[in-house]
């Protein structure tokens, strides 16, 4: 049996017919072709598939697509506006908050949720908020810095980037 659902993803509305067992992350990746949201595990531990559903961070492997019927969804592709990077995207870039980049979209989406609730989190608060996301490359050190960088930028404070912008057209 298939169900017709309507979801708005990154501002674009889609009507799609789905099997009831289809996961939200499968809808996003395989049906809508938005491959920035990743799948890193099958037990909802890794957080690579984190997206926003109606403004809240959700691991999109923990929801069926049919449960997202009528929802507003934002993925990492919907974070930048007119090529202007979101402060978190800028922060991860400036502070070398990523290496292989696979966990990055999920961590950025989880961090965006954190900063909405807590605009000036301490290191400890950031580390606790990232409990649901694995990164195997960075040891989290620069991820913490990237999030603090973004938080400062979003509070309108001046920030000194760690990384030197080499190529033109950056950020």
């Amino acid at each position, binding site marked *: 049996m298939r169900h017709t659902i309507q979801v708005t993803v990154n501002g674009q509305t889609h009507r799609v017919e789905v099997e009831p067992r289809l996961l939200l992350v499968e809808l996003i990746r395989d049906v809508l072709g938005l491959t920035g949201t990743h799948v890193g595990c099958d037990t909802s531990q890794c957080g690579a598939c984190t997206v926003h559903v109606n403004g809240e961070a959700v691991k999109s492997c923990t929801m069926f697509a049919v449960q997202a019927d009528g929802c507003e969804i934002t993925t990492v592709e919907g974070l930048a506006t007119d090529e202007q990077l979101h402060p978190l995207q800028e922060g991860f870039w400036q502070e070398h908050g990523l290496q292989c980049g696979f966990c990055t979209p999920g961590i950025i989406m989880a961090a965006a949720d954190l900063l909405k609730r807590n605009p000036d989190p301490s290191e400890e608060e950031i580390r606790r908020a990232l409990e649901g996301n694995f990164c195997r490359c960075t040891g989290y050190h*620069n991820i913490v810095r990237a999030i603090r960088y973004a938080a400062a930028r979003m509070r309108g404070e001046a920030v000194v980037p760690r*990384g*030197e912008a080499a190529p033109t057209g950056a950020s």
Partner: protein
Amino acid sequence: MEARAYIGAPIRRVEDRRFVTGRGRYTDDIVLPGMLYAWIVRSPHAHARIRAIRTEKARQHPGVVAVFTGKDMLDDGVGSLPTGWQIGPDMKEPPHYALAVDKVRYVGDGVAVVIAETKAAARDAAELVEVDYEELPAVVDAAEALKEGAPLVHDEAPGNLCYVWELGDREATDRALATAHHVTKLEFVNQRLIPNAIEPRSAIGHYDPGRDELTLYTSSQNPHLIRLLLSAFVLKIPEHKVRVISPDVGGGFGSKIFHYPEEVICAWSSRKLGRPVKWTAVRSESFVSDAHGRDHITTAEMGFDRDGRIVGLRVRTIANLGAYLSTFAPGVPTWLYGTLLAGQYKTPHIHVEVKGVFTNTTPVDAYRGAGRPEATYVVERLVDLAAHEMGLDPAELRRRNFIQPDEFPYQTPVVLQYDSGNYEGALNKALEMADYWKLREEQKRAREQGRLIGIGLSCYIEACGLAPSKVAGAIGVRAGLYESAAIRVLPTGKVQVFTGTHSHGQGHETTFAQIVAHELGIPLEDVEVIHGDTAEIPFGMGTYGSRSLATGGSAIYRALEKVKAKARKIAAHKLEVAEEDLEFRNGQFIVKGTDRAISFGDIALTAYVPHDYPEGLEPGLEENAFYDPANFTFPFGAHLSVVEVDPETGRVKLLRYVAVDDVGRIINPMIVEGQIHGGVAQGVGQALLEGAIYDRSSGQLLTGSLLDYALPRADDLPSFEVGHQETPCPHNPLGAKGAGEAGTIAATACVVNAVVDALYHLGVRDIRMPLTPERVWRAMRGLPTDGHAS
């Protein structure tokens, strides 16, 4: 205008824009027209004979296109996956087929593949494949596997013994230990680890019948080696008819070096079906099908004279190789381990014996550090424990034994000749950064208040930049270990760099571009680094063993020298002077002592529009280089950690972590620090959290998901304090040594030393890793800690 000095600058990574915006392109992101999806039916048994496989029901399932078994592949002439490293003439090398033919030998061994129009159909139909197994007794522990009467994994390997390997002078070492003033002895288990790159492995076979060409997309660190093994050994099809593409790869840590069965299955079945076939692991499948790491059982004894000088080291190790020999597996617990046992110390006599053993477990191969963390663990645990036993400060005992800066090149008794180093310098810097003596005071005060603080040191050395090909050949590597590069200057002066290494998080697109932009005096954005496609790149050897900058970067440097030499000829012609009258500065050839100059861009254009051109010189500006290193490189460092142990619960909290590393000349300090951070996190993971556990009777992997296997999370770790010392490598043009594995090699021993330091006064000499609260709690109470679970 001065050209920018890119070497040494913390340039923000050029590859990151695509990653932060969700536009990375990993293998599973690729969708090809007409693509089919594969699901592999895996053995639920650790050891069983396959009596029959019935596939009819699965074939009839809607959407299913084909079901293949190991016998189908064998009948079609598909060969065994070879290992790339031979240890001695008598090494047992039983066949390893992509899908098991007669027996399954570990939980997760593939027995059939279902290929269907959708992922869901393939997965559903896989449930309908009926395999009739005759269960056999299994053995998962390497020491058990060596015992008389143990279940036999392969008929070709009696007693489950793959090889016995030894290095060093047995008699001299025995004599030195017999007459030593003090001997410290420990029995270790360096536990099995599961690498867990966050991107699960994925492969797409894409056969084009029109061109008779096979393209394999694969999440690999090593595309050329995969092409060579797949074409020449397994599928037996011409190498030039196979193209391997490794697009963005989401971490590897060694686990994506190897040639895996799924690559063969997708490539072969795509040829059979004439359509693309994709397989992507789900995580619980990664747990049983990605090569595991470590898994040593070791007895080691280190002898000292009256003054605390090391007189000898004897090591006996049983290494679990798993059920089959993975690509680099035989070499990891032998040459990459035994040769590092001198550490940073003047150890006159060393003897090591290693038994490589087959068991009914997932194959074990190189995981970040590969042999060197195991060696460092042996040496640094023994030195540290010896200091406690002899009542000496652990830093002081190390100092008494360091190889001194004026003693290089230093020949160890285990083959390697260290080229350079300043070990005491790195230790002093780490002690200073941590304020060591003040920490010792604080530790004393804390103890008076009933708090258990421990301080751990780890002074490590690694052999990286694998490796001089002649040496590789002498130690049984069935390959050369040079690296390739090509520099293609385009008519507009933009530059494409092709490297045989592969980046899966290390930032080569930035670091290598920095070298090129720096040397040519051009803007970084004019340089593009291309890797991971065998159709574009000269034959290269991939990325592992912290080799990419030292070997791949050096190859780029050599190719640049050739480009500059040709550019100089063109410049001399255009400026009508002799070549030696020119100097190359800031992206220009300048006639010495004048302001007459020609820019690199103008030379590039001239090379491709050679109207006014030197007689006899070929047009174009494109050069290749293959760089074969003269020696290994020897990064080293000193790490220090501070822990607090909860006396009530045994929980260990890592309070501080200080790392001083000497990785040679640094091209991008921000990237190097990131490599150290990540390496340390994995080493801490082994010390405190991670461990693969097999049930001894059933052979089931009990830690088979991220629910059961504890990877470090953000709140398990502190921020790290990272310092550098820079002793350039004397034998490669960049002076670079490699930074990818340093943190992992140092950190495990560093943290365990700190915990034992916190508890030594309670009678604790050692605790088996991972140092879970239960184990620590038991150790504090004198109870055994080598139990299974916990």
